[in-house]
C-alpha cells in the first residue's frame, strides 16, 4: 500500500494514529515532567509558558499526564488486541482444520461469550478486583478473541477447499508450511481490519471503564479517569475535562477511519 493509493479518509486516520503514537512514544520523554508531581500553588493553571496545556486540580502538568495516559491506553489496548487476536486466530484455523468435537466445543465456547453483551461480561470479571489492570486486561481479551475466531474459522474453511491448498496438503507439505505460507497470508487483510477496529474499541472500553471508576484508578494517569477526576472543576477549567476525552476520540476516530468507511 503506497501513500498515493490511500483514500483521504484513510490518510486522515493514519495521520491521527501516527500523531497519537508519536505523542505516546516521544511525549513522556520530551515533556520530561513527572506526571505525579503536585504543585498545589499552581493548581488549575491556564495553558502558558510553564505548563503548555495547564495543570489539573492538584497542580500536575496536564501535558505530562496526557502523554503518559496516552502511552498507557495505546499499550494496554495493543496488548489486549494481540492477546485476543493471536489465540483467536489460531483457534479459528484449528477449528476449521480439525473439525469434529474440537470445532463444536470451540464454537460453543464462542457462542457462550456472545450470549452476554461484552461490556457486561467484562464488568463481571472486573468485579473480582475493581481497579486492577489484570481483570480488565483478561476481561477485554476474553471477550475479544471470539471475533477473530469466528472470522478466521469461516475464512479458513474456504481457503482449505481451494485447489492449491488441497494439492499442497496431498503432496505432503507440513502443517506449519501450509499454515504460514498458504493460510495466514490470506487471513491477514481481514485480521488487520478486525485488529485496527479492535484497537479503537479497546481504547474506548478502557477509558469508559476507568471513567466509571472500574478500570484504571487515580493516581495513575488514564484518559477516562482524568476526566472523572477533573469533573468537579469543569466550571473553572473545562479544557482539562475535554482534552483527555478528545485524545480518546482521536484514537478511536483514527482507527475507524483507517479501517475505512464501510466499517461495522
Amino acid at each position: 500500500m503506497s501513500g498515493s493509493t490511500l483514500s483521504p479518509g484513510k490518510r486522515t486516520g493514519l495521520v491521527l494514529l501516527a500523531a497519537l503514537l508519536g505523542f505516546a512514544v516521544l511525549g513522556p520523554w520530551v515533556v520530561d515532567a513527572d506526571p505525579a508531581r503536585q504543585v498545589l500553588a499552581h493548581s488549575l493553571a491556564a495553558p502558558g509558558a510553564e505548563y503548555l496545556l495547564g495543570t489539573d486540580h492538584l497542580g500536575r502538568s496536564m501535558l505530562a499526564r496526557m502523554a503518559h495516559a496516552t502511552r498507557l491506553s495505546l499499550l494496554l489496548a495493543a496488548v489486549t488486541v494481540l492477546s485476543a487476536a493471536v489465540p483467536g486466530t489460531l483457534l479459528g484455523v484449528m477449528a476449521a482444520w480439525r473439525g469434529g468435537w474440537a470445532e463444536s466445543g470451540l464454537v460453543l465456547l464462542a457462542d457462550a461469550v456472545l450470549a452476554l453483551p461484552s461490556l457486561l461480561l467484562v464488568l463481571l470479571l472486573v468485579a473480582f478486583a475493581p481497579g486492577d489492570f489484570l481483570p480488565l486486561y483478561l476481561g477485554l481479551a476474553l471477550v475479544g478473541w471470539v471475533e477473530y475466531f469466528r472470522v478466521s474459522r469461516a475464512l479458513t474453511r474456504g481457503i482449505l477447499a481451494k485447489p492449491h491448498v488441497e494439492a499442497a496438503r496431498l503432496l505432503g507439505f507440513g502443517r506449519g508450511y501450509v499454515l504460514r505460507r498458504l493460510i495466514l497470508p490470506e487471513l491477514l487483510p481481514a485480521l488487520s481490519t478486525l485488529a485496527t477496529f479492535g484497537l479503537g474499541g479497546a481504547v474506548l472500553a478502557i477509558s469508559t471503564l476507568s471513567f466509571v471508576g472500574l478500570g484504571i484508578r487515580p493516581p495513575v494517569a488514564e484518559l477516562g479517569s482524568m476526566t472523572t477526576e477533573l469533573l468537579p472543576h469543569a466550571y473553572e477549567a473545562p479544557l482539562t475535562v475535554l482534552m483527555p476525552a478528545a485524545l480518546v476520540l482521536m484514537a478511536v476516530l483514527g482507527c475507524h477511519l483507517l479501517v475505512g468507511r464501510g466499517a461495522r
Partner: protein
Amino acid sequence: MDRHNWRSLLRPILVRLLQALLVALIVGALGFALMAALPGDQAFRLAAARYGPDMGDATAAALVREELGLDRPRAVQFLDWIGQLLRLDLGHSLVTGEPVLEELRGQLGHTLSLAAVALPLSAILGLPLGILSGLHPSGLADRVTLGLSVLLRAVPAYALGLLLVAVFSIRLGWLPPAGFEGWREFILPGLTLALGLAALSARVTRDSVAAVSTAPYMAFARWKGLPERAAVLRHGLRNAAIPVVALLGFQLIGLIEGLIIVESLFSWPGIGHALVHAIFARDVPVVQGAALLMGLLFVLVNALVDLACATIDPRRARAGA
C-alpha cells in the same frame, strides 16, 4: 399462518431459550466464584446481611452455615446456587439486606423507561437521515450524515453526555443535568443514548435504502406504471426494513452497554447504575442479579427482533401463504 411458518418461528425461539439458559449459567458461575473470592467467612457476611450488622455474630453465622449448607463440598454448593438462580431466588443484598429481586424491580423500571425514550428517539434521529441519504447517495445529506455518524461513533459515550450537559444545562440552562422526576430529566440521558444508536442505524438504513432503490423489482414496479410513492411504499420500504430491523439486535448490545455508562454518568437509578455500584461495594448478590436481569433483557429483546424479522420479510411471509 400455517404449520410451515410456525416451524420457522419455533427454531429461533428455541435458540433464544438456550441462550437465556447460557446467560444464567455464566452469570451464576461468575457470581458463585465472586462470592467465594470475597475475603472473610461467607457465613458471617450473609448473617450480617440478613439479620443486620449487629446480629452478625458467631451464633447467627453458625445458623446461616447450617441452613445454607456452607460446609458442604463446593461442587454441591455450586449446583445449589445455580438451582436457586434458575428459580430466580437471587438472595439478599450484602449491603442493605433487602431481597435482591425487590431492589432490582424498581431499578428495572427506571432502566426500561430510559430505554423506551432512547430507542424511539434514535429512530426519529437516524431513520429519516438514513432514508434521505440512501435515496441520493453521495449527495449533500449523505456526506453530512456520514461525517456525523463517523464522529458520533468515535466519541466516548461519557464525553458525549458531558458535552450535552455542558451545552444544554450549563450554558443554555434549558434542561436539568441529573435527576429522574419529570419528563425533562429524560431528555439528556435519552439523547446521549439515542445519538450513539442513531449514528449506526442511519448508516445501515442508508445502505439498505440505496441497495433497494436500485433493485430490479423496484425498476419493474416503476416500469409497470406504479407511481413513485406507491413503488416506494409497497415494494421498497418493507425490503429496506429487513437489515435495519436485523441490526436492531446488534444495536441492543450497544443499548445495554450504553445504559450502564449513561446511567452511571447521570446517576440514573437503573440496573446499570446498580451494577456499577454493587461492584464497588462488593455486593455480589446484587452484581449477579443486575447482570442476570440485563443479560435476560438482552436475550428477550433479541428474540423479539428475530420475530419481527421473520414477520417483515416478504419472502418468508409468502413462503407460508
